[in-house]
């Protein structure tokens, strides 16, 4: 049995408070949170139309290199790479948020149900995620992006990523639920007459929440990276700047014309955000580790 304490639903704020306290002590985590916050801030400002609203306008000569006026240079149509970069961060954060919002509840609920009930329910869920997992991810994403009735675009990307990236969460939560359901607190709840739903969501869920939180941040990063790949392949975000679209544009300019700034800006933006999230993940994992609590 792990040495960490167990939580009830009422005590979830306590868990979060303890996590925040631990994260505050981790300097690397703080830097990562600041970087993520900057991206979030830029994304929100662009969403409100306060930043980079002229991203589609021609502001100078095509392929103008970085200058004081345009520190990230201009692209093939004379548009500001900086403004497109900011709009790209907005797309990345939207995709990350919504696909995580779909994938995590689906994965967590299916994992809990499978692990708690076992039997044919478990067999069905395991069959479902094993089948989904056996299909190459990018091919599955491509197929979903092409057939979804929402048509091509941001919504489709979010849905496609959401319904394909719940597998790892489900697997992890199922394993933990199998272990936890045999613990005394679950047996005690059952002997006191608690129903299955109450045990699942009031007793078990708070005690697998630390895994769900870590999974959420992993899915967030995975979604951002996948959106870039889908947009690069031409089935992602339509009619709007995205880092994938920018890298796709830059691919031609880089080899033929030596125009490096768009490629450098988009890959650096992606790299920094993914790195910040990964560092944050590590810190979060440590903060949530029951052995440390």
């Amino acid at each position, binding site marked *: 049995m792990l040495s960490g304490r167990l939580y009830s639903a009422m005590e979830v704020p306590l868990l979060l408070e303890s996590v925040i306290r631990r994260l505050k002590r981790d300097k690397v985590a703080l830097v990562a949170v600041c970087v993520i916050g900057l991206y979030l801030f830029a994304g929100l400002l662009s969403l409100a139309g306060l930043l980079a609203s002229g991203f589609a306008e021609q502001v100078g000569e095509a392929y103008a290199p970085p200058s004081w006026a345009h520190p990230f240079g201009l692209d093939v*149509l004379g*548009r500001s790479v900086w403004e497109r970069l900011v709009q790209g961060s907005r797309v990345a954060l939207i995709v990350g948020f919504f696909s995580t919002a779909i994938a995590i509840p689906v994965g967590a609920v299916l994992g809990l149900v499978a692990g708690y009930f076992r039997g044919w329910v478990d067999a069905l869920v395991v069959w479902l995620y094993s089948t989904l997992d056996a299909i190459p991810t990018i091919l599955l994403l491509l197929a979903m992006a092409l057939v979804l009735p929402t048509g091509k675009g941001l919504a489709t990307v979010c849905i496609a990523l959401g319904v394909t990236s719940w597998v790892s969460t489900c697997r992890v939560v199922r394993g933990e639920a199998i272990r936890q359901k045999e613990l005394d607190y679950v047996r005690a709840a059952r002997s006191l007459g608690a129903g299955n739903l109450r045990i699942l969501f009031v007793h078990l869920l708070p005690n697998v929440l630390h895994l769900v939180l870590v999974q959420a941040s992993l899915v967030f990063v995975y979604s951002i990276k996948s959106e870039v790949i889908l947009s690069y392949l031409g*089935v992602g975000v339509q009619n709007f700047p995205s880092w994938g679209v920018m890298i796709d544009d830059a691919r*031609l300019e880089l080899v033929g014309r030596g125009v490096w700034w768009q490629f450098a800006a988009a890959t650096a933006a992606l790299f920094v955000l993914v790195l910040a999230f990964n560092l944050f993940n590590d810190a979060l994992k440590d903060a949530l580790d029951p052995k440390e609590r």
Partner: protein
Amino acid sequence: MPFLSRVLPLSVCLALTLLAGCAPERDPGNVYRGALISNLKTFDPAQASDSYSNQSQFQIYEALYEYKYLARPYEIQPCLAAALPEVSADGTVYTIHVRTDIEFQDDPTFPGGKGRKINAHDFIYSIKRLTDVRTDTYGWWIFDGKVKGLNAFRDASEKLPALPDSIHPALYDQEVEGLRALNDSTVRIELTRPFPYFKYILAMPYAAFVAHEVVDKYGPEFLNHPVGTGPYVLKEWRRGLRLTFARNPKYHHGFYPTEGSPADSAAGLLADAGKPLPFIDRAELYIFNETQPMWLNFLRGNLDRSSIPKDNYSQAVTPGRGLNEVIRKRGIVLNRMWQLDLTYICFNMKDPVLGKYKKLRQAMQLGYDVETVIDRFYNGRGIRAQSLIPPELAGYDSTFRSPYGEYNPARARKLLAEAGFPGGKGLPELVFLTVASTEARQRGEHFAQNMAAIGITVKVESCTWPEYLERLQVSRYQLVGASWMADYPDPENFLQLLYGPNKPPGENNASYQNDAYDRLFEEMTRLQDGPDRMAVIRQMKEIAAEDAPWIFAVHRVAEILSYQRIGNLKPHAVAESPIKYYRIGEGK
């Protein structure tokens, strides 16, 4: 260890020798070395559906007619025919005299291994074989619905046993009403209606002469055993590596052209006028699956001719459109030719907004900065199109100007206001459909940017190629970026794109309908080349320019590099790589 110490160097030497064997040798004598960017699939003329097959087959097989090497606009001349076709007054009956002094190349199939003389029956057989459903050709469309009785022959062929059984069925001996050999040297073709461009069809590789004995003998292996009448014979075919052609000793009927433009004369292209062809003893075509190895081999002098891979464009050509000094010093010259094509933006005339407001369409044409498209996306290789017909095609007139064939945003805004949408007010968002490739999307974004500048909001939607084609066929789009490349060098091939009865699923993707245009088109199809036909074509161009069912965009230019040692090289958009005209060692 002693074993290894002996074997290792030996293996390395062997590997290096093998690798060296894969690369073309430098300065091999009177040999032309070209490149194919694809594996050749077949030597069967009925399957010559891509330009690489055409290039390869052009060296071996011949048809009744061929393109004049130097003439622009493109014209045909007799090849296996004795003269140009005699066409009846109503344009439906073609009488063609076939030369009977030309022989197939030698092959064990023929008695004594000696190729026999060709005759009119060979042509009839070749077309019947092309028509036979079992041949499974991509080329049936060139005769589909055009020759009396030929479609019935095709239907009858569906009942034949599957190949390779019955490779020469009795059906082939039955006469087809519109396709007859009157004797050994005369062919009579009756068309279902006049097709003035039919002569070009008789020059296509699909219509090449094949000997029935050769097809009968080799059966399914015929695609590996080309036996033709052309300037070269296939000496060696190393799959995925190299094709080697040697001079056909029985080829005596080809002569270098004696007529050309003053520019041709100045370029030394008439120095060999009247001389027997070919000049080169052996031709080698190397197969590359990637452009970079081809490009590097070309720069090393291992290939005589190469296209410019798009990623190496700035390495080869300067911003001033000249050849880079380093490349020029290697003895490389840049050749340009018109591609016989047109890129355009098509309006869906069924759309309630775009189809209704002519001035809106005209405004959008005026607001589209085509010059920037040419500069950014085609490296300056092209001109703004003023009509459907590209340069070097009959019917092209460099002085013709569409009233809306210029970039003039101020005039565009004025017309937009006259259409009832001042500053774009009241106009819904329009959707521009394009294929999901980087450049196509960028061109779409550029168009949207141009339209935004005059107040029109355009959203770009990318889709896969099959979806794109499907949506064109069912008219499920508002605006679409498209291009058309000539199937044959006749203006009809472009003008039919706006002919009313050709509406989707036909080629008139705009669903454009104008009775006056349709009447003129029908009249044009009845007229043979001449001033009357040109006058009708001009009227059609004027109607299309005024109605603006398309935004005419770009006529593109292709660029080819070659070494100076290759003489007599004039790029040809229809007959690709006609090696028989090239000469080694006397380049311009």
